[in-house]
């Protein structure tokens, strides 16, 4: 081994390195993609939860859409109003407006009112219990109360109440949809907070068969449909369905004669009043 070999190898390596450096610098100029520097700045102002409630792929996707003017800061449900103002003033756009949406549970069958046909023993998650005879509840559509939704919520908006129903706190809910994904019974829906008329039931049984498994089940009696504005509420498969396209016609009058309390007029969070359970069926 002579000093010549060392110099030769160092020279070859250096030449190869120089060659690639030139190639890279050419490629850098030729294939340069301009990225709006405001995107990074805006993303820095966003909450960074990547919850997806805005409908864009994460906070960066939302930031890009903001800079391109395809959406408004108000769409982000996680930011505080002040933070939205900051983003709007940085981009020189209007904050915009968006109806606040929340997750609502379409079941009011807590342990106090819904029949448990069989005891479930095993892994304490709704998903696992659903795989075993639907969890053993008499109403096979109903909430099992094992809190998969509570665990899925990144914002602490869901707490289980004393009868095993998840209560969604509207002020904390960002309508990201994680609970919708988590619930094996498909009981959560995302809807505007302003929609106060809600049928808290998914049970498709009719009449006495429905109330035999749950005191607050919708038994398809049609009283709400009769009392509400025409075409606002339809009865399909033994269940009252509110047509939210015509929600402006809704009034609390619809819930007045409900014999089970399945249809409710909510303000704020659900399940704040005790279940009405089979009152006013006669009179």
């Amino acid at each position, binding site marked *: 081994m002579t000093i010549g070999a060392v110099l030769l190898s160092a020279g070859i390596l250096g030449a190869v390195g120089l060659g690639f450096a030139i190639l890279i610098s050419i490629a850098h100029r030729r294939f340069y993609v301009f990225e709006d520097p405001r995107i990074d700045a805006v993303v820095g102002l966003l909450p960074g939860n990547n919850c997806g409630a805005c409908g864009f792929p994460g906070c960066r996707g939302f930031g890009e859409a903001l800079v391109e003017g395809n959406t408004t800061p108000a769409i982000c449900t996680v930011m505080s109003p002040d933070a939205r103002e900051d983003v709007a003033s940085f981009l020189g756009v209007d904050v915009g407006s968006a109806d606040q949406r929340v997750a609502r549970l379409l079941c009011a069958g807590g342990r106090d009112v819904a029949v448990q046909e069989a005891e479930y*023993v095993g892994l304490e998650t709704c998903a*696992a219990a659903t795989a075993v005879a639907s969890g053993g509840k008499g109403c096979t559509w109903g909430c099992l109360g094992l809190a998969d939704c509570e665990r899925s919520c990144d914002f602490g908006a869901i707490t289980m109440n004393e009868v095993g129903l998840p209560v969604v706190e509207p002020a904390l809910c960002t309508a990201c949809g994680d609970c919708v994904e988590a619930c094996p019974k498909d009981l959560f829906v995302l809807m505007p907070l302003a929609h106060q008329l809600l049928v808290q039931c998914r049970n498709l049984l009719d009449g006495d068969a429905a109330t035999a498994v749950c005191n607050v089940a919708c038994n398809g009696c049609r009283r709400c449909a009769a009392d509400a504005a025409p075409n606002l509420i339809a009865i399909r498969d033994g269940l009252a369905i509110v047509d939210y396209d015509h929600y402006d016609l809704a009034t609390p009058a619809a819930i007045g004669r409900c014999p089970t309390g399945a249809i409710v007029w909510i303000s704020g969070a659900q399940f704040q009043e005790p279940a009405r359970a089979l009152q006013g069926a006669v009179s």
Partner: protein
Amino acid sequence: MGFWHSFRHGVHPPDLKALTAAIPIRRLPYPDEIVLPLRQHAGNPATPIVRVGDRVERGDTLARAEGHISAPVHASAAGRVTAIELWPHPDGTHAPAIRIAVERYSPQATRPRVIPEWEGLSHEELIAAVKDAGVVGLGGAAFPAHVKLAPPPEFPIDTLVVNGCECEPYLTTDHRTMVEYPERVQLGIRIMLKCLGAKRAVVGIERNKPDAVDAIRNTLPDDLDVSVLDLTVKYPQGAEKMLIKAVLGRDVPSGRLPMHVGVVVQNVASLATIAEVFETGLPLIERIVTVTGLGIARPANLLVPVGTKLRDLIEACGGMTADAREIVFGGPMMGMAQADLDVPITKGTTGVVVLSRAETRDQPSLPCIKCGHCLDACPVFLNPQHLGALALADRYAEMEQAHLMDCMLCGCCSYVCPSHIPLSQLFAASKARVRKLKVLAA
């Protein structure tokens, strides 16, 4: 002899068949009400063709098949249709069903019917007759039998594998069928071979049923290539892909069907039912059900009208003992736990196992110790401990990449887990979640 005929992995649970293995099949008296779900088979639910108030005779068609992969539903007793409504279903949901109030003093005769000579029928007529009779696989999955009789022509079938394993503990339905009706099984094989154009049939029976092996062996036909293999006792030998591996040594790849390797598998009870269609002209309206377990007073093998409620079946077997804890449709490994005594026996109900406190366990599950027992047990070569960890962390996309969908929920991993982790239950829940996420994404 099939000493070397087996498949890799699997488990050896105690077979516990002695409770009913020697008890002859007896007929259950007709109950007062029959409930026939429209979905008792894989595929589309049947469409009702009767109305509330109609009087039906035993054997009448109540609902017709909806499409190719579907099966009609027939009245299993004479009576009046009282309702067509949602009713508790063995799968744990409520599903549409036809309720019939059975006439208590009816002779339960059937309408006069022409019994076709099967030898004279063409291929299409045979398949139509099986379809009209509502025959489905009686081994549990309830796949419509006529679909298996007509595989697409691009996949020629060379071998019919007859499934007489009955590898689930406790169950003796297929066992008693083979012992008491071996001729029917043979006739079923004959008809099926004709339909498939296959040259040979192999009957696989586990070695813990020597009387069934003898019965089938003693009735083997001279003019057909039918043979019997007595297989080692191992669970899940009765799973289609495991049985093909054990009997023929062929591997059915992931996501493919037995017909792709030139095989059709049919269960012995289904073959006996196909034969019965051409012997009596009656559709599938009753089936043999093993009612067993330490939680039932008098275990039995019963011939039950399809649609009989679980409550009536338990009553006919002397009721439940004081320490009965859990009722399972099917075997304890893959069966479905029942929450409601009003669920009806369907075409796919192989047995009713009433487990006592001593037969169930509810130890809390402990952390995984990475012992690898589940890997050695999994018959489809998955990594249950890895999948289980992913399931507990809600990482469903990665589970799918790790072939979650190949899991058939046989329960071997749960059975061997020393930490009592309910792995197959986790996988059942995860499979449901993966399917739901696909629906939400669409």
